[in-house]
């Protein structure tokens, strides 16, 4: 392996998998838009091909410029820019699917949350690689929590719950990687679990029992225990209150996210159709361009959010499993590069970027097989979308950047 020999070369398996997935993506964008009923979308695969060229160039630049420029002040610059764009989106963003997620210049549309994700990873990597950092001190968590919490809340306000949770995933993954003990991680996540559990009493009682047991056995001092208990009590009391004060349509929107089958219109039906498409692919699939569920045009998003359903229908278990394994390889290489990097900042940067991929891939695929709610998150590299493809390549480029310089302290 190039990496182990230390030639300073790129990680070849990662490069190979990335480009292969992007090409598979273009093939299935072509397939998903090939029906006569979708004449307006026939040229999309060509657009995606042009974007791939741009993305490759972008990825090369991201890999070539040494990662050290992202250390220190420039991290703040990037982060503040990302936040400003998010705030801007709230005021002048394009409304799509009932949320303001996009900023646009002419035909170009761009989700500022993409930049904010990378910027948050860079800033967190800076915080967590500080020499005097001691994660056993509660105070050391304040900066990372705020850094991830602000974009989380801004995106939640759009409202885009699916994307906002990315910031929490990044935070928790990087804290774990930086050495936060599992106990602390659990206590940190506990308010989030609390909110979800408070809708269902038995789940909440179970949660409260587990939390109490963990706290009892933790041998923490009294102050931090009381702090965790207080936060959880506040969250537990406030959540139902907030819920009762919401307007009926607001409640319905949240209920739909938590349980799409409660949605009288769309998402539950989309998931059933997606499951039929994938399941009916059987072992070998119906053949490229021959998907019949796809032809029903049951979803307007089959070349974007539901592209994995088309893969499953047309190439069967063999194709779907192959694509899934390719994604696993991509993430495995990311973890490996993070592990081998000698510089603590570089290692954290690599794992943070990898966690973005991990979250998106899992949430999207799980959605198409009926494991997760419909969130509107694309499948990185495969889904149609120029800026999304470019962002993915920039992120992979950064990971390659670290692979090439793994020896540096």
């Amino acid at each position: 392996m190039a990496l182990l020999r230390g030639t300073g070369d790129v990680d070849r398996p990662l490069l190979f998998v990335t480009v292969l997935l992007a090409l598979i993506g273009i093939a299935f964008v072509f397939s998903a838009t090939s029906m006569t009923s979708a004449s307006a979308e026939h040229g999309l695969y060509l657009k995606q091909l042009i974007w791939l060229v741009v993305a490759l160039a972008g990825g090369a630049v991201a890999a070539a410029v040494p990662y050290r420029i992202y250390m220190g002040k420039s991290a703040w610059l990037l982060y503040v820019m990302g936040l400003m764009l998010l705030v801007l989106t709230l005021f002048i963003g394009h409304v799509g699917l009932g949320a303001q997620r996009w900023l646009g210049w002419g035909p170009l549309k761009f989700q500022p949350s993409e930049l904010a994700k990378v910027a948050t990873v860079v800033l967190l990597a800076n915080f967590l690689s500080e020499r005097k950092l001691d994660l056993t001190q509660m105070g050391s968590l304040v900066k990372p929590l705020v850094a991830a919490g602000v974009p989380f809340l801004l995106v939640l306000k759009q409202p885009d719950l699916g994307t906002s949770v990315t910031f929490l995933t990044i935070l928790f993954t990087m804290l774990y990687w930086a050495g936060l003990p599992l106990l602390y991680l659990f206590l940190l996540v506990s308010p989030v679990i609390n909110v979800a559990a408070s809708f269902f009493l038995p789940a909440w009682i179970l949660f409260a029992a587990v939390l109490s047991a963990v706290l009892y056995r933790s041998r923490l001092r009294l102050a931090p225990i009381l702090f965790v208990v207080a936060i959880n009590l506040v969250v537990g009391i406030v959540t139902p209150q907030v819920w009762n004060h919401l307007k009926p349509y607001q409640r319905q929107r949240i209920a739909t996210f938590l349980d799409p089958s409660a949605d009288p219109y769309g998402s539950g039906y989309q998931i059933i159709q997606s499951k039929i498409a994938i399941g009916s692919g059987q072992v070998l699939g119906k053949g490229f361009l021959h998907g019949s569920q796809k032809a029903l045009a049951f979803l307007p998003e089959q070349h974007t959010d539901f592209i994995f359903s088309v893969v499953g229908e047309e190439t069967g278990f063999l194709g779907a499993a192959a694509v899934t394994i390719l994604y696993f390889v991509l993430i495995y290489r990311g973890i490996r590069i993070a592990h081998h990097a000698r510089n603590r900042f570089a290692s954290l940067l690599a794992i943070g970027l990898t966690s973005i991929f991990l979250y998106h891939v899992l949430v999207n695929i799980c959605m198409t097989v009926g494991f997760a709610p419909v969130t509107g998150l694309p499948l990185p590299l495969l889904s149609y979308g120029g800026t999304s493809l470019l962002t993915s390549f920039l992120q992979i480029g950064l990971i390659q950047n670290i692979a090439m310089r793994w020896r540096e302290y």
Partner: protein
Amino acid sequence: MLFDPESLSGSRYRQRNFTAVVGIIFALVLLRLFTMQVLQGGKYRELSEENRIRVEVIAAPRGDIRDRNGLLLADNVPSFTVTLDPFDKTYVDNPGLLDSTVARLGVILGVDATLLREKVQHDGRQSFLPVRLRRNVDRTTVAYVAEHESVLPGVDVEFEPLRRYPLGLMASHLLGYVGEVSDKELEDPDRAEYLRGDLIGKMGIERQYESYLRGEAGKRFVEVNAMGRKAELLGEKHPIQPKQGAALTLTIDANLQRAAEQAFAPGARGAAVALDPRTGEVLALASKPNYDPNEFSTGITQERWSALSEGGNFPLFNRAIQAAYPPGSTLKPFVALAGLMTGAIQPGTTFRETCNGAFQFGRRSFKCWNPQGHGTLALRDAVARSCDVYFYQLGIRLGLDRLADFMKRIHVSDRSGVDLPQERRGLFPDAVWYDKRYGAGKWSRGLVLNLAIGQGETSLTPIKLAQLTSLIANGGTMIRPHVIREVEEDGRRVTGLIATQDSIGVRIDLSPAALASVRAAMEAVVADEHGTGYGARVDSVRVAGKTGTAQNPHGNDHALFIGFAPVDNPRIAVAVLVENAGHGSTAAAPIAQKMLQAFFHPAADTLRVVASR
């Protein structure tokens, strides 16, 4: 919990754990794919080839609307809607067939096929639900469609609650109507859960309280097999029952409302508003001419819509809140109040110039409405007989600034704040306004004369007039008019919507003595033998009022009347306007009289709550 912050972050232990967790999750995904595609693949293949799974939306009935006594103003009746699923397998396999089905449906439903085609393309584009082609289809058509099921693929008859307004034309502007949600309304992120073809409140109460009235739609999953038959899809999901919208109780008194509407001559245009001056409850809010909101429930044709919205009398226009009119002499009690409050006059003050039918100001002569003249009058008689010459002189003595200041203090140019959509703002101009309009100082001082008799640029909505009348009636509280009395959702009262005792209105500091003088003068308007408002007299009730006859650029004078009763403890305040109907005393006061009569002495043929329906 051993942990060394100085160590390399990616320790072997953490890397191994992290990789293992990720590996397990991916293995679960692969297992899921294996189960779905290999083990259950046959079942899914069958579903994709033989059958079509559809979701059927079960529309929720909108909430009932009742008057303050429980009389039903809006409810729902069962009806049939013919739908077409453009993504039926037949049309996916053979898109050309869709056109012939649409053409056939055009004949069956009696609708232009081109319109149907547009609707299918428009509504079918963004949802995967059947397109609702025509609502409230009769039983014969339903039977015909059912019999010809096999040659009408994807066509179905759905059961849908139809909005009904049992009293027909009555209170149409207040209640509003429902219609299919527009593209523009769909762009609002707060309406994310609306789909094309859904009904939404468009005007009045239906629009204002849409989020409560709407309810929550239910759904069921059905499997349509090759024979076109439907079966409940077992195993996947249970049907979700629809939930009816919240029940609304209004402050409106249907009998008073009916009296107000019937008091207008056939073909008359105008508005009448009655408020409870103690609380701001709207007891009646009428606008003439009416329209029939039932027409909209089934979907209205383009031609009919044009006739209603652009036709000569603009029946859709709610004249009680959307139109502002010159108040004419109905403004005089407020000008008198301004005079008393600023000390410009006392109740006994008389002016130098006696009224001989006209008043000379500079080179211009300002006429009194009565060419015979009124002689020299003090406040009481000047109001009772509506002497213009008295108010010209009061206007000059006050000056524009003092008069405009007072009008601002009593919020004349603000909206009344009633909980109905699209209320228009009124206007009482001041020097700043004239400077802006004509250039600084380039306007005549004589303007104040016209303003003092309610002419000029002043304009008020009928509901605003009623609100201002309440101010005099209740002794200085600017109540907030409201039409909602109670909202009941899931058997519970929704709170926070209705004005509580504390928030009934804004207290305005008016001297009790000044108010008493104005009230006495307004009582004289109705009670005195020379009073202009004799037409509003009601047996055994002391009524106070003021007539108005407003010149306007649109033709004959508008007739107005404001009033309240009983004088010593007012329970009702009214404002009546009849467009281009002439004198307030003959055209508007009698309408107010009939409203007050209905309020204080209800007739035998009252509308009553029927025990069951």
